[in-house]
């Protein structure tokens, strides 16, 4: 029974990690940017919910999704578009700067203290499924994640822009030569990553009931790990990596000796380093990413 309970925990946590990792992996696949500022998208989504507290939940949620997507587009336009030709390390530093910038703008506006938000608190209640106490939030998370992934898969296979994005991810120069509009592809990628980030904020705010200007940081670090494990640039890999990290985190939480549990994240990152040494290219490698000389 406990094993089953842990399995459900692992899958729902993994689902959230997968969403966060997908947002990062999507941007990386197209422009080689490891977007540290993705955490700030998540954080701003949380603050939108805080600002609209008291409105109907659906209004709060839609407003958060909309604003975060616009913010993502703004980041692309102002910071990352001029750096499109820069190397990955420079891009990472730039995203660090964007993240720091947004964090401190929020800090100036709202202060450093975490603030409580009432958002779908009743999702915290559990339902009884065959003797298992499963929080509704976990069920909702799993369903939403699966729906989003299905939607994304359809989008990338069926829609015109989706196919263009896959082409751009495969070989950007070649894609442009055959008429893919770079700006459109980038904009759509950032908008989607904004939507994914805002879904993660909905989850975080529902789960913790509070927002703070640093709330995105730990999530983005985990998402880094997940997307690198999956294979940077592979979207299936990012989702896979997210679930994997969720499973590992929950297992460590459940099976580490009690006095070692505070160090859970240290173990997660230690395993991450070990994984890098074993398979630095990640689980799934895209053909386009193999090093060419």
């Amino acid at each position, binding site marked *: 029974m406990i094993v089953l309970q842990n399995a459900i925990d692992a899958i729902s946590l993994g689902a959230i990690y997968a969403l966060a990792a997908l947002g990062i992996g999507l941007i990386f696949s197209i422009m080689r940017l490891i977007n540290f500022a993705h955490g700030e998208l998540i954080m701003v989504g949380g603050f939108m919910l805080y600002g609209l507290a008291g409105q109907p939940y659906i209004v709060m949620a839609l407003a958060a999704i909309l604003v975060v997507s616009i913010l993502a587009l703004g980041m692309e336009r102002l910071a990352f578009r001029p750096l499109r030709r820069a190397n990955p390390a420079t891009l990472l530093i730039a995203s660090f700067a964007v993240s*720091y*910038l947004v964090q401190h703008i929020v800090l100036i506006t709202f202060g450093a203290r975490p603030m409580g938000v009432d958002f779908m608190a009743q999702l915290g209640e559990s339902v009884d499924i065959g003797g298992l106490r499963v929080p509704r939030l976990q069920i909702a998370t799993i369903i939403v994640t699966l729906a989003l992934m299905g939607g994304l898969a359809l989008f990338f296979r069926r829609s015109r822009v989706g196919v263009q994005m896959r082409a751009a991810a495969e070989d950007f120069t070649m894609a442009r030569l055959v008429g893919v509009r770079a700006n459109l592809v980038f904009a759509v990628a950032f908008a989607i990553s904004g939507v994914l980030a805002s879904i993660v904020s909905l989850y975080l705010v529902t789960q913790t009931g509070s927002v703070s200007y640093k709330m995105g940081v730990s999530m983005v*670090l985990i998402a880094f790990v997940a997307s690198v494990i999956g294979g940077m640039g592979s979207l299936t890999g990012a989702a896979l990596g997210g679930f994997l990290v969720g499973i590992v985190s929950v297992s460590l939480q459940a099976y580490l000796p009690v006095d070692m549990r505070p160090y859970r994240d240290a173990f997660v990152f230690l395993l991450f*380093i070990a994984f*890098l*040494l074993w398979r630095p290219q990640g689980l799934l490698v895209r053909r386009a990413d193999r090093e060419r000389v």
Partner: protein
Amino acid sequence: MALAHFSSEPKPLQTAGVLLGLLALVVAVSLFMPPALQRTVVEALIKLTVVIGLYIFVGNSGVFSFGHVAFMALGGYISAVLTIAPAKKAVALNLPPFLEALQLPGGVALLIAIAAAGLIALLVALPLVRLRGIALPMATFALLVITHVVASNWQAVTGGRQALVGLPRYTDLWVAAAGAAVSLIVAALFGMTRHGLALRCSRENEVAAAATGIDISRERLIAFVLSAIIVAIGGVLFGHFLGTMTANTFYLDLTFVTLTMLVIGGMRSLTGACVGVALVSTVSQLFRSIERGVSFGDLTISAPAGLQEIVLAAILLAILILRPHGLVGDWEVTLPLAGQDKKKEI
């Protein structure tokens, strides 16, 4: 005379000399400053030590490291445990008896911290330097997170989430200047060795460097250990400057600030590292005083706290977009007269 246009050929010793001279000038000027401002200079000199340490690896290899602040924490905590008075340690920590009774002079503790940081850097980097591409920076990121988690939870040794207080505050202007001078000299000398040269070669073209017989992993290992040692010295000085150690001090914010200093000045040159520290420290201090409030007659205007971070991030972004190699690029400062002589020969 055909080679005359190479008059900007590197003269690392001269560069180090000029930078040391500038350092002495800063120290001389700040002797006449009010104590509060002097503390800012001391802090800037400690940051200079750290950023130069960072430059030894990042600048020469071209590989970003997000994990060097972990070595600051390491140095600081080792020195803290070795220098805090036993009575205080008995209250705050839970150390083995011999460590609790131990109270060493600052210098001895510094040497032990250096040795420990070097050893740990060696053990950590030995596997990591085999990584290529973006994997190595990501692994150093993991290093930072691991160190932070351990530092904020290892109640018995680091004090956990509470600040560890009672470090002898021996870092004054002279000590900080000495730290900065040592790191400058070490960085300049390392740049002149074949290891520094080989590493910079690999920075320009990894494949070509490997093809000429450069063992990139080995050169990166050497630079990583050396730079971790210098950064650890910076951490020790920082701990004994603040008088306290807190796990959160040595995390993402400090990583961001030190990397910003390096990138803004220009990570490809020692001069750039110094310029970056000077510029960022000046801007920080400027905005810190604006945040405290500026009086125009009766009117006092004060900016909200956090403004300096926003300005720094904006500057960094602007530099990355407009001058990707930093303010000075590849330029190294040399004596102006020595350069002119050559130009006249043409």
